[in-house]
């Protein structure tokens, strides 16, 4: 099976230094574990963030050179049409650009492929690809997706393959010029990120209610059993669990 991993030029959230996006490295590991021939595709300027992916299990990266600020969708769509992979893997969100997670969806629509989100494990199934999807609270869901498909990878997938310096030296980067497509105009102002306070409690009314919800100690005022028989206590706990789960 032939797989393509979409790579983006990530940055480190603290220092801003160029680095690969961790979830894309996990995607490479997932594809390797599935036994695919894996190729990385990056549309942009390249750089150390993309080259470092070679050290984490990629043999080859196709670098589609487009100008900074151009829309990578057209270049990647044309390359996918030429490569005809069975599986396209991407991280669920980028880290360093818009970070909106839209590109896999737009690519799936342009290539007329189904898309499955938040994979943590992949396996070959008779009808296509079995995907284990991560859900909140550690829950999992099993999907079967028709191939060829786009699959985005979740952060709780198995960790990336370790960095191997020799592979970084021996891996190949094939550089071609991508299709120039100006990104759609997006009227917005950018400024340094400011962390905003999260809402506490469910109160949203007056300031007094919010203060009370934030400061008052939660006293449940529930049931108290003093020195019950162990069996009686066990029954009470099980009854409580059944009510709230």
């Amino acid at each position, binding site marked *: 099976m032939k797989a393509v991993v979409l790579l983006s030029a990530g940055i480190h959230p603290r220092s801003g230094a160029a680095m690969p996006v961790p979830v894309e490295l996990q995607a490479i590991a997932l594809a390797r574990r599935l036994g695919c021939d894996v190729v990385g595709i990056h549309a942009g300027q390249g750089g150390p963030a993309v080259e470092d992916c070679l050290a984490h299990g990629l043999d080859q990266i196709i670098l589609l050179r487009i100008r900074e600020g151009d829309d990578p969708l057209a270049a990647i769509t044309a390359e996918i049409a030429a490569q005809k992979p069975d599986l396209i893997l991407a991280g669920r969100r980028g880290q360093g650009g818009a970070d909106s997670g839209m590109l896999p969806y737009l690519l799936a629509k342009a290539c007329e492929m189904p898309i499955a989100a938040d994979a943590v494990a992949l396996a070959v199934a008779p*009808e296509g690809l079995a995907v284990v999807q991560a859900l*909140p609270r550690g829950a999992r869901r*099993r999907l079967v997706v028709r191939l060829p498909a786009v699959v985005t990878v979740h952060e709780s997938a198995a960790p990336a393959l370790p960095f191997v310096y020799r592979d970084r030296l021996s891996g190949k980067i094939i550089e071609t010029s991508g299709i120039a497509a100006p990104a759609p105009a997006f009227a917005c102002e*950018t400024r340094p990120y400011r962390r905003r306070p999260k809402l506490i409690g469910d109160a949203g009314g007056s300031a007094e209610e919010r203060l009370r919800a934030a400061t008052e100690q939660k006293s449940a005022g529930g049931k108290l059993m003093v020195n019950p028989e162990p069996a009686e206590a066990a029954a009470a706990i099980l009854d409580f669990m059944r009510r709230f*789960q």
Partner: protein
Amino acid sequence: MSRIRRDPREELAAATVSLAPRLRIDRAHRGGAALAVAATISAPTRIRLAEPDYLVFSVADAPGGVLSRHDRQVLGAARVLAGHNGAVMLLGATAEDAGPLGADRFMALPGGYEPEAAAALVAAAVQRHAPRHVLFPETADSGDLARRVAALLGEPLFDNVEALSATSVTRPASARRREWRAAPMRLMTIAPDMVAPYHGAPHEVEAFQPVEAPVRRGILAAAPMQVDAAEIPLNQASAVLSAGNGVKDFQGFLQLAHAMRATPGASRVVCDAGLLPRALQVGASGTVLDADVYIAFGISGAPQHLQGIGKVDHVVAVNTDLHAAMIARAELAIIADAQQVLPALLEALRP
């Protein structure tokens, strides 16, 4: 809704007890002007928007068929954008309690996990009703749905909105080093715990017929999987069974956690003694939980431990000390030896 203005001079005059021989003002006196205007507020009536100027869609995740806390916040955001003359249409599996949360219209989406069908339905509804804004919660399933709808409509998505007003929205970008601020866009997803839910007068909800839409299915099957609770990371677990100094038999404790389908946790004392791995420690220096149910066996409840369970809704405590802080925190408090209740519970769960 206009706010009632206070007249500070009138309040001062009402609070003035005497002018001579010296000025005396009784500020603790709760009467006068403020109370007089409060009495004029009438009982809330249901707001009915028969002919709104425009629509704002609010798509609900509704896990388990109930509007979640996040869904309420998205409805609150939709209410902010709708203002006085816009109507909020809730799209989801349930319309229960939607009126008090600010919804004016309701369109049913099919329950269950069918992201392709749901995306086609939402996109068709957007094309039919031409809403000014469509808001989704930024959760696993609804975030996926929002991106599918954006791709179907070929419109940009302003995702993960962390600050919202009627005139501007803000989202993080560039690995949370920058943020983008723009006028509210058509398709947006709202980050959790950032926008307050609606607390005004209740609205009247009118049901709308869903729109038919053809679907091409690429996801052939979907089924939830059974997950071993012990493998779920502690900060994501929904039920946690925790052991403290009152527990002696840790093999039995782990068996009980498995039988109860709860994730095992521990207090600092137990982890320090090396009786359970450090990864299981609950509290300020361990993991801060976000669970629904927490069962504390033999834990007295040090302040640092109680910090770790601050967000937990339902707490059960088994402890020998009636005056322990954990007993005060618990909804079901059992004064007994944890080491005796533990085998009884295992026995009760045995098939």
